[in-house]
């Protein structure tokens, strides 16, 4: 049915467009039209598409509901309240109705299947007819609207703009969804643990509170070690990725020959796709032991799951965020600005430093912020390489843990219902959310202050 409906929809849309355009074309030979014929066509399309989609989206669920209820009623009215059996019964009914059922069919079931298929074909027909009527009305409306003064383009563009706006809202809705999907659980968490302890406590040790029957389950939910750990690892990652990424971008955009660039940039981008699990293994099994041995060689005590190893690998991963995106914005700086600088006798590096980079500043900051965000939000690398030891330490050679590691282990592990520990994952998510929010607000202020609009 859906298939038929959408084929019909496509046909009506196509006809509508052609009719609208042709009629406008013909009419515009004698009169000057406000809008181009294809905009009139597009307007007809819109006036067909919107109502037809609406009919489908409202009609189908209602029809399905009615059909199912009736069919099950025909089988056994008691089933209506039994959610589980109901599903099974429905499957049987559908199977019988579509002739896929193996095994014997009880009369009741046959009757129900009969009800189902007859009702189903009835509602299907109804929806199809309704769709066709609405679609044809839409075409008629769209065609009638065609006149010299009719601002089809403006109408269509308004629809486009609404669509664009809706798309922008998706991101916002996602945020809202995320906040809400962690908010309630977080609130429950804060009923158990005081927000003050949570935000300012110096010790993170959810394992001490793993069981409800356990004593001393308070005081171990201080996020300070996580904040420090996250900051430390992100910092290490950015110390690696910031300069290297930026230099790589500068090299690619300003120094590299087109051939080198066309090879090097994709290669860098491959980095993005290496599963972070794999990178995590690399950090934990290759880099970390190497660092430890190196440390021992020079008399330093390096932990096997040092923040350094995780940070370095993370840095490797996000290099390309910085490099690839920055390369694009640097490339977009008009040549005339470079010429202006070279013409003053500036060296290439001076030109890049003082003219190109400032002009590309806001884009570069965007790239950096994206990289930082990725580093803060990245999970698997740190899970595997950094471990879970919640040390309150700025020493990169020690093991630390991060927000994401804790969230992941708590959510994925063998958690229990409603323990403060399980809930703490949500609170962590919420706090991390505001943590990065602050970071972003600051970054945005910086960009606003230093942005240079070239032309």
């Amino acid at each position: 049915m859906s298939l038929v409906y959408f084929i019909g929809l496509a046909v009506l849309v196509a006809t509508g467009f052609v009719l609208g355009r042709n009629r406008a074309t013909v009419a515009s030979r004698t009169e000057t039209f406000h809008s181009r014929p294809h905009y009139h066509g597009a307007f007809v399309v819109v006036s067909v598409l919107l109502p037809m989609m609406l009919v489908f989206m409202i009609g189908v669920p209602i029809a399905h509901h009615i059909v199912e209820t009736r069919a099950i009623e025909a089988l056994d009215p008691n089933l209506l309240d039994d959610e589980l059996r109901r599903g099974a019964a429905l499957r049987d009914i559908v199977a019988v109705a579509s002739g896929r059922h193996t095994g014997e069919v009880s009369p009741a079931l046959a009757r129900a299947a009969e009800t189902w298929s007859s009702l189903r074909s009835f509602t299907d027909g109804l929806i199809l007819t309704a769709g066709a009527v609405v679609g044809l009305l839409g075409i008629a409306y769209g065609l009638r609207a065609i006149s010299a003064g009719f601002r089809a383009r403006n109408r269509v563009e308004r629809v486009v703009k609404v669509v664009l706006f809706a798309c922008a809202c998706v991101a916002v809705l996602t945020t809202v969804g995320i906040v809400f999907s962690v908010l309630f659980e977080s609130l429950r968490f804060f009923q158990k643990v005081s927000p003050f302890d949570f935000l300012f406590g110096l010790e993170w040790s959810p394992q001490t509170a793993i069981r409800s029957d356990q004593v001393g389950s308070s005081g171990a939910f201080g996020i300070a070690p996580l904040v420090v750990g996250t900051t430390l690892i992100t910092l290490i990652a950015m110390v690696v990725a910031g300069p290297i990424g930026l230099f790589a971008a500068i090299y690619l955009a300003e120094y590299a020959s087109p051939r080198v660039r066309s090879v090097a940039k994709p290669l860098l981008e491959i980095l993005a796709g290496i599963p972070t699990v794999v990178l995590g293994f690399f950090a934990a099994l290759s880099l970390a032991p190497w660092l430890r041995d190196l440390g021992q060689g020079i008399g330093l005590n390096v932990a096997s799951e040092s923040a350094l190893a995780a940070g370095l690998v993370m840095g490797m991963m996000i290099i390309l965020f910085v490099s690839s995106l920055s390369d694009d914005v640097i490339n977009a700086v008009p040549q005339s600005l470079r010429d202006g600088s070279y013409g003053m006798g500036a060296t290439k590096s001076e030109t890049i430093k003082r003219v190109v980079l400032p002009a590309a500043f806001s884009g570069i900051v965007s790239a950096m912020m994206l990289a930082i965000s990725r580093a803060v939000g990245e999970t698997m690398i740190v899970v595997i390489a950094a471990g879970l030891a919640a040390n309150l330490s700025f020493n990169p050679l020690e093991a630390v843990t991060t927000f994401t590691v804790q969230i992941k282990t708590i959510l994925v592990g063998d958690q229990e219902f409603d323990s403060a520990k399980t809930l703490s994952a949500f609170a962590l998510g919420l706090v991390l959310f505001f943590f990065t929010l602050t970071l972003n607000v600051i970054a945005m202020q910086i960009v606003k202050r230093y942005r240079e609009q070239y032309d």
Partner: protein
Amino acid sequence: MRTIVQSIEGSRAAAERDLAAARAAGDAAKAAAAERRVAAATEEATSLSARMTELSDTAAALQARFEATTAEEPLGVTVPSLLVAVDGGLVKLTRIGARDAAGEVLLPLASGGATAKPGDWQLVTYLTPATNRKVSDQEIAWLEALRDRGMVENRFNTLFFTAGDSREPELAGIRGALVGTSLTLLVTLVLCLPIGVAAAIYLEEFAPKNRLTELIEVNINNLAAVPSIVFGLLGLAVFLSFFGLPRSAPLVGGLVLALLVLPTIIIASRAAIKAVPPSIKEAALGVGASHQQAVFHHVLPLAMPGIMTGTIIGMAHALGETAPLLMIGMVAFIVEPATSITDAATVLPVQIYLWSDLPEIAFQAKTAAAIMVLLVFLFVMNGAAIVLRKRFERRW
């Protein structure tokens, strides 16, 4: 060891001298300390010489075993395996004497063991004791026999690409994961590219510049920092619980990943759109193009390289992601490759994650192979995007 003992003896002698000196001088404290040192050294020396005797005894015993001509040595599973190839068969030695050896037959002898001539045999040694390996001697024997008959060959494992997952490493294949990945990424791309670009266009070109848009902007940047597993929570809450979409389905996976990479694409696209000089847009407006026409005809094509970069990065990110899929049930053992976006399926990184966690060692090779496949997938995907991007790239 002897020298160590001597040095200890030496230090004890020194300590004793100190002790005597201290006693002579009447320095009680020093004397006590020296006394302790003497005691320690003595104890150490005794324990060491005890150990020495023990070792030399063992050495002597071994020597005796070696030299005894009549004694018999049993060969257990903890010593290297000795196999004798004789008369077309293979015998595993279980006992070895000075003159003869006994063993069990792994491969039957051609003539029932009657006619083997002296010197007409060959000794094969496997240094790793049987306890330390997964393959038994019998299995080795069979393998060797098959190899001799030319029935063992080494060839490319096409099954790996045509089979679904399995718990038997020999049968496990990547097809299910490949199909799942393709479907999931398709859903992701179809959703996140248009939505991301549209959002970027709206924010950069049409949105009134006010607090609200600023808020949206910060919001989007912030989304990029949300841990991916939280997107899984979102998917669980919204798509599975609220909309009732099927668990483990590429559709839901694609939706979640689309939301996950949306910020990346929006941010990259905005930066790219911002970088197009306004004079280009003005030129279009000047000949009577509408704002939307100017954007779609001129700004967007010029911003395309940046948008493609964002898409490449975003899709690569989606390709490598495991954590959010955990919450929506895609981290699962699924044998049959999905045939539609609502079938249960798994994806490559998840397959890697799952295989890497299985005890069978053979799965480690599978894991590595799957990683290679993932990288190839990535190359192909990026390659296509990069070719496209090159067509849009220009400097003005």
